[in-house]
């Protein structure tokens, strides 16, 4: 901005004309840097910090989880239906978990999580009995002493294959 006059000055021999001087050479620059070019960097920095802070606290207040039905409701409604009835219901796939954490899909053992997913998918896609489409509900029957991890795995597999309704119930001890 101040360059053109100075180079012109040096070219013309170093004596600036009074007209040039009266049009102030330095003051405009000082004004500009003081008022017009207000430094936004600190504000932007603080804003970003706040942004990151709130993003992180928001993300940390969420906990990933799997929903399951309250057993009480089940005991009144579903448990009132005998197991036999549910087994004969074509709309249910039954997953049993034994106390040694072995998993059975409709009485066929699934050896791994992958296997369980495959078996559930098969069970859902192949029509059972007379119904036109595969069953869309899942009943997880877990032994009281099986590990929580296995139960969650079964529920997760049910969600993975898109079961509409997933029920969870505790198997009677005498059942095994």
């Amino acid at each position, binding site marked *: 901005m101040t360059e053109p006059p100075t180079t012109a000055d040096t070219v013309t021999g170093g004596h600036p004309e009074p007209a040039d*001087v009266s049009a102030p050479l330095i003051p405009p620059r000082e004004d500009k840097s003081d008022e017009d070019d207000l430094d936004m960097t600190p504000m932007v920095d603080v804003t970003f910090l706040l942004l990151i802070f709130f993003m992180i606290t928001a993300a940390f207040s*969420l906990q990933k989880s*799997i929903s399951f039905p309250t057993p009480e409701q089940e005991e009144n409604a579903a448990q009132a239906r005998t197991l036999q009835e549910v087994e004969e219901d074509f709309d249910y796939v039954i997953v049993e978990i034994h106390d040694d954490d072995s998993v059975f899909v409709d009485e066929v053992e699934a050896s791994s999580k992958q296997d369980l997913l495959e078996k559930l998918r098969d069970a859902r896609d192949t029509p059972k009995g007379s119904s036109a489409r595969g069953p869309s509900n899942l009943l997880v029957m877990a032994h009281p002493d099986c590990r929580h991890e296995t139960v969650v795995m079964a529920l997760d597999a049910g969600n993975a294959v898109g079961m509409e309704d997933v029920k969870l119930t505790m198997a009677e001890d005498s059942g095994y």
Partner: protein
Amino acid sequence: MVDDQLHDDIDELEEDPILPRRRVKNSADLDITPMIDIVFLLLIFFIVASVPDPQVEADLPHARHGKGVDKQTSVIFTVKDLGDGQTEVYLGNGKRGDLLPEAPGDQDAIIRKALAGHAIALLPADPDAQEDAIRRAVLEGNKNQGKTAVLVKAEKGVPFHVTHQVGKAVGSAGIEGMGLNFAVIEGQ
């Protein structure tokens, strides 16, 4: 006066090295603000990402299809696995806390504190007393603290009958639409 100063300035401008001098001045007081900013960002990142205390953090099961539940609006129970089928149930987000007192008056105060996240209470091992404490916590949370869900942070090795018992106790509070959730870690 003004004129003198202007002349001085012009004299100064007329001296040969104008730009080089300014450059030297710029590099002399190097601006370290951006560096400090980045250092602070990194600091905050590492504080947040640092490994949580294994004494407090529950060993949750993994699942792929978890959905996010807001901890602020949930009544949180933590079920700690002691091995060999032994467990402890806590009200609050953590695995260490004092046993809930027997007297109902003291109980209520601690339950309220635990719901607000200021304390962790170990619930009694006796099934009936435990069920009672869970029911009261859920009722208090729903009525007075706007909790709309229950989050059960049960560790991997907890036997199913324990989580079932907790679920049953929550159900016995009889609040419609109080969602029950097992906390998981997303991933394989």
